[in-house]
């Protein structure tokens, strides 16, 4: 990590608005490849808006605006890349598991490729198996590949959604509180999975659970009222936070 000099993601002066309401104010940070970055902060602090600016989903709602520079591997995703291409490079996993109920388990995994006809049937089968294995779901669903994606349990659905994002071979995976709808056992599985994911890709994960952030992340970013208050190595943030706001938040003395 330390010997890696180039930045996967380089964000500077990022502002975002919902209509007239500014949700992000001058956020700048750099994220190294193959790391897990936790984004924490009280609700309404702009964490969701922040990650939705990284895959250009914030701008989808009419009236929303973004300004600032977001460089992915040195390329400005707002200027030089089509939004669809950005989203293929930056995967996303949502708070509520959202597999496509009209598709089978294996089709869900390869949905991103299959829907745009980017691979042959044989390739797709291999991709499905590979990514189901990567999320530890293969053994559980091996015999149910043709069943609807909605037939799995909540925890399995969420791992299916992670496999679906992984299948696109993304540069970055964004996770928006991926365990908040899950039971503790499923949560533990996802946390273990996140730790293994950084061997292949870069993870940015929102969590409302500071212990979770401490358990799984290398870096932590603390947001408050649309501003990035503090960003640094997770250990440092948790052991000696610079800002009193951060300290109050991670020790749970926050309103």
């Amino acid at each position: 990590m330390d010997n890696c000099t180039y930045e996967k993601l380089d964000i500077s002066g990022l502002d975002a608005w919902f209509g007239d309401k500014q949700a992000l104010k001058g956020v700048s940070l750099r994220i190294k490849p193959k790391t897990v970055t936790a984004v924490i902060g009280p609700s309404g602090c702009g964490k969701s808006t922040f990650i939705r600016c990284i895959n250009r989903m914030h701008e989808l709602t009419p009236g929303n605006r973004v300004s600032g520079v977001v460089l992915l591997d040195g390329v400005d995703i707002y200027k030089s890349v089509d939004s669809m291409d950005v989203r293929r490079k930056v995967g996303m996993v949502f708070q509520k598991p959202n597999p496509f109920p009209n598709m089978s388990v294996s089709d869900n995994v390869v949905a991103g490729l299959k829907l745009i006809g980017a691979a042959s049937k044989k390739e797709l089968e291999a991709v499905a198996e590979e990514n189901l294995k990567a999320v530890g779901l293969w053994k559980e669903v091996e015999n149910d590949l043709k069943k609807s994606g909605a037939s799995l349990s909540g925890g399995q659905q969420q791992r299916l959604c992670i496999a679906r994002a992984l299948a696109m071979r993304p540069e970055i995976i964004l996770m928006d509180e991926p365990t908040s709808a899950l039971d503790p056992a499923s949560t533990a599985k996802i946390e273990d999975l996140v730790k293994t994911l950084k061997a292949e890709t870069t993870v940015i994960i929102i969590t409302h659970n500071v212990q979770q952030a401490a358990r799984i992340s290398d870096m932590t970013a603390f947001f408050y009222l649309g501003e990035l208050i503090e960003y640094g190595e997770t250990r440092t943030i948790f052991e000696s936070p610079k800002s009193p706001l951060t300290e109050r938040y991670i020790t749970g003395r926050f309103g």
Partner: protein
Amino acid sequence: MQGKKSSSHYNRQDAVFKYLLISASLLVVGLFAALFLMLIRGSLPSILGNGLGFLTGTTWDPINGIYGALPAILTTIVTSLLAVGIAIPVALGIAIFFTEYAPVKAKFPLTVFIDLLAAIPSVIFGIWGLWIIAPLIKTYVQQPLVTSIGFIPIFGGPAYGISLSLASLILAIMVIPIIASLAIELLSRTPITLKEGMISLGATKWESVMRVGLPFARMGVIAAVMLGLGRALGETMAITMVIGNSYMWPFANPSIFAPATSITSKIASEFYEATSAIYAGSLIELALTLLIITLATNVAFRYIINKTNKEAKR
């Protein structure tokens, strides 16, 4: 693997798809506009030839070129109002039974029944009304009434069976499922909290319907009436088969047992014979009149429904 095709390729596909959707939608708007224009164009010979007398005239005599539509218009309006008048209490009864008293197990069969009644083709109502109901009505309802209270003009004889009143009855049966299913939907929307409040205060179900359910759905019930009216006004086949197609009612014979002619039955039975431009134009002007009346009820219906939807959201 991915990203081989350039994104502009997908953007082009997106644009083509959007234009496809827009052109389909434009086609719908265009067809609606064309419907109006063609009816207006088709009625021009009549509008110019008959003038306003068309709407007030009581004689329809193509041989002498006299086209008065008033009896047909009145028949259409009166049969529809009578039909809806008969249908409302029945439909509300069904809706109240369904929402308040019906056991859960009976609800599905009830919706099947309502939907099937709504699905029976109108020509089937026609053949049933003409061959099964008309003779029965004539013998067991019309004749006794004519002999007992026939001195009152609207119950006057002779009894034909096929008549204005039979048409209203058949129409009523046809609009019952339409009004009932909308009324069920609206009554089921009564907020549970309001209902439970009433019940917890010791009110009976009946009182809860009367005090909370119906007032809450009041506008909606009016909308249901409009919907039923719209359907009844435009109904053709059943009416044509049971109304008798005579221009007697209401001016020559005001009895509800007299045969009559509605706008739709007039068009259905004479359109083939209409060889002259003014004859065909007069029938098309009848259709235009009908279109305007039904669209007005449709607009009223949607206005009320939108208003109640907004109120329900509040």
